[in-house]
């Protein structure tokens, strides 16, 4: 069971500032919820290690290599046509097909990596039960902290959040 302290802030700037200060103040930020991408927020709550681009590179190159292999097999091995002594493996002319499908391959692998990283599609999540959470996709800015177990610590965390400008605070047990 995890306990989460969820605080709403009036704007992205206040949220970002608090998220950055949380760790030095001795709290562990778990996540933040915003209606748009806020630069620097992901790093402040400890998101790192995106393999999206690596996956795109590997997927793209693999699909491109397969496409080239198809061309090579069909034009050089399986059905070679000698047309005026032109090279069978005409690599400059063969580049476009691997290029185009390679980029599409990269897009698909990136999407798969994005889904794996972010846990989507996942229609159900406990956080949706928080009252007012539907405003996160519109105009609410929430910060989730790992809730201290100790009652006095918890009160201090609440005070700290309120001082930082939190409008409302919820405790959630999942």
């Amino acid at each position, binding site marked *: 069971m995890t306990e989460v302290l969820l605080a709403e802030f009036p704007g992205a700037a206040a949220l970002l500032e608090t998220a950055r200060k949380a760790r030095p103040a001795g709290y562990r930020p778990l996540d933040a919820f915003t209606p748009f991408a806020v630069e620097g927020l992901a790093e402040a709550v400890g998101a790192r290690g995106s393999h999206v681009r690596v996956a795109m590179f590997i997927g793209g190159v693999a699909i491109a290599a397969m496409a080239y292999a198809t061309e090579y097999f069909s034009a050089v091995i399986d*059905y070679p046509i000698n047309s005026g002594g032109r090279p069978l493996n005409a690599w400059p002319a063969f580049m476009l097909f691997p290029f185009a499908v390679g980029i599409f391959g990269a897009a698909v692998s990136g999407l798969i990596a994005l889904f794996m990283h972010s846990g989507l599609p996942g229609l159900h999540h406990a956080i949706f039960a928080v009252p007012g959470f539907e405003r996160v996709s519109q105009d609410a800015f929430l910060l989730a902290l790992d809730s201290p177990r100790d009652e006095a610590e918890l009160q201090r965390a609440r005070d700290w959040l309120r001082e930082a400008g939190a409008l409302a605070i919820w405790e959630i047990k999942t």
Partner: protein
Amino acid sequence: MSLQAEPPEIERWTEPPGRSYLAISELVAAPLLERRQWRWRAWWIAFGIASGLTLIMAICMSWLFATGVGIFGNNTTIVWGLPIADYVWWIGIGNAGTLISSMLLLMRQRWRASINRFAEAMTLFAATIAGLFPIMHLGRPEYFYWLLPYPNTMVVWPQWRSALIWDFWAISSYILFSILFWYVGLIPDLATLRDRAKTAFPRSFYGALALGWRGSARHWYFYEHYHLTMACLAVPLVVSLHSVVGMDFAASLMPGWQESIFPPYFVVGAMYSGFAMVVLLTALVRWGFNLQPLITAEHFNVMAKIMLAASIIMGLSYLTEWFAAWYHGERAERWLVGFEFTGGYAPVYWCMLLFNCIVPQLFWFVRIRCSIVAVVVIAILINVGMWLERIEIVWNTLSHDFLPSMWRIFIPTFWDWALLFSSLGFFGFLYLLLARIFPMVSMHETRRLIYEESHQ
């Protein structure tokens, strides 16, 4: 004398009613979720017309598939007809959406936030319609799948050295890529619609499509990584796509169809006609969905500047073509340029130069650029001019090759025109349906624009 200060960015791109996060959601989501309070009369009229044209397109296609390409004005000399010009024109428009969206993203042009979504949607449909035309122009359209490499009883494979095969792969990869690019950019907005929906059906519909998006900082982090990388990949893909279309014409021995400038010139032409189409759609979407607070005259101003730059590059490309013909010294090439200016299609050629190179020079005047009506009228003329250019590329060369005894003129038939105009209707049909189901402006990117511009 004091220099007049530029207005702050936020005032350039938004009007006061659209400057809060909630107002953006309300403006964009209202037509989709509060249908009862929304007047759909203009939509129904447009939809009626578009459906009628779509029906005509279906009739054209049925007649074409029943009787063959003889219904077009193609003859023994001009073997490529209007559908090929329509194809190049549509693919040009189809190129622009993703190009505009990704290039402006990479250039950090934040104003793209309110136009990129419907520009991307334009891409999806224009590229799909473009893809239909070469198939319709085939002698035996039922065998179009021979372009695919699959083990078959004839034991033959596609000819990988042919620009037409490249075309097929470039277009299909591009359409699929554009669908992903559009959809991923849409996910956070689908979540907004899910959360704003008051009744069960829209909530489940948008909820399922939003895939459980929670707006978590981690979601955004990976989303941004993916979206930005997609934009980086989109630019070379788009450039290669229209370059390949250019190579369909450049990689031959016919006079006028052997110029190395064609690939870049086609790419600029695509961006040009695409921007003109985006301007037209921007004006319609702005009016139809009351988005004046999010789409300002300033948007038209900057797009007019881009079209002006593109028109100058187009002019330069035409000059290069004429110069190359003269410098080449080949008699047929020089004849062809003379034929362009004085031959059977001369009025078309002059109109094309007027619409593509002369009229857009009006954009030098700031009063024209800031007048939405003027920008839209010029954008329509540019679209007409660009279509004329596509048909000129096909007609001139084929009508006037090396052998004078072969010279003929192309006369379009009823079916040529019917197919062109009905394809516009089909585009409208798909676009109107989309506008009724999905948000036309990217809400999360507009929110970000407001946040970043007001915190600078």
